[in-house]
């Protein structure tokens, strides 16, 4: 019986015309799916570029234009700094997907202006956990006073980590001299992503060495700006 039934069903096939029609439909759908996949990849790439530009522009401006500032938040998350400052940025939502580099930088400059307006209060806040007391530099980020005077260096950074318990790790880079010290704070989430930073009078070799040790994604930008500033200062001194 099996043989007879097999012989019959073997002759029953999807008609050629229908087969071609369905195949064409599948190819079209598959093509659209691949297109969407490529579009998603492209979109992800654009977002990555935007983040990099955002950090670069702000990092450069903070270092060049003002003694203190706040680097942007990423992903629209609120970042609560040890200093007490917090930031939220939804820049990605407001940028068209086909924005040019120039448009991005204009937009990011606007964000930077807004961040600068807030920077002054953060400077004061940072003073509250890093200050000179009786000729000693005291770090007090979490209720425990640390005398870090002897760790201050213009070359080697002192790096202190704080884990507030929200899954983030805050890295405090401190360096300079007792009369001219500076600090920078960078935040890393538990999945290894760097989320932004804060700086106050962070400049010099200790700062460059600090960002290199942390392997920040935008370390190169910071270092290039540092070197440019140093070169400008040198040429200014010569004049």
């Amino acid at each position: 019986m099996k043989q007879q039934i097999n012989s019959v069903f073997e002759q029953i096939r999807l008609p050629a015309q229908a087969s071609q029609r369905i195949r064409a439909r599948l190819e079209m759908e598959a093509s659209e799916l691949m297109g969407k996949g490529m579009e998603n990849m492209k979109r992800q790439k654009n977002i990555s570029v935007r983040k990099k530009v955002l950090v670069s522009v702000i990092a450069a401006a903070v270092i060049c234009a003002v003694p203190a500032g706040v680097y942007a938040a990423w992903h629209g998350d609120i970042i609560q700094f040890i200093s007490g400052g917090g930031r939220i940025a939804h820049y990605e939502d407001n940028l068209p997907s086909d924005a040019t580099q120039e448009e991005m930088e204009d937009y990011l400059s606007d964000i930077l202006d807004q961040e600068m307006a807030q920077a002054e209060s953060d400077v004061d806040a940072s003073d509250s956990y890093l200050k000179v007391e009786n000729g000693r530099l005291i770090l007090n980020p979490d209720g425990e006073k640390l005398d870090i005077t002897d760790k201050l260096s213009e070359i080697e950074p002192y790096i202190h980590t704080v884990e507030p318990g929200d899954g983030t790790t805050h890295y405090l880079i401190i360096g300079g001299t007792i009369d001219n010290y500076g600090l920078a704070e960078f935040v890393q989430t538990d999945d290894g992503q760097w989320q932004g930073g804060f700086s106050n009078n962070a400049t010099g070799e200790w700062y460059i060495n600090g960002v290199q040790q942390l392997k920040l994604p935008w370390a190169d930008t910071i270092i290039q700006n540092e070197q440019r500033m140093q070169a400008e200062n040198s040429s200014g001194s010569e004049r």
Partner: protein
Amino acid sequence: MEQDIGALFCAYQDSVFRLALSYTRSVQDAEDICQTVFLKLLHADNIQPGKEKAWLMQVTANESRNLLRSFWRRNVGSLDELLEDTLPLQTTKDSELFIQVMALDTKYRVVLYLYYYEGFSTAEIARLTHSSKTAVTTRLQRARDKLKTNLEGAGYETADQFGL
């Protein structure tokens, strides 16, 4: 799945079509189900390698049952229309056997196709058709008996000519 869809369509288009046809007895409906099933395959992302055919047959059975449950479908699709679209087969004997298989109730012709042509076990057919293994075994036996009776009623010596 989109990278393999062409090869899977070539390999299984006829199996999907035959099962859909066994359920619906309509070439047009079976073609539509075939397209629906492969489009679902294209978008599926949870099929284990090597399990594609089982997945296709399961989705085909589901789609076919859904169609049969619809009010619209209950009122169209006749055996005569099917035979107009599919016959003649290579031999008169083949055509007669096909007519008699397709004249059986849905539950019988589906198990006949899955068991004899596709080679599924009764346990696998039970899963595909949402039935018990006992029910499948019973349906197979009844399908054979009914087929034999119908063929003999049409004047054939079934044991000699159809191996029944």
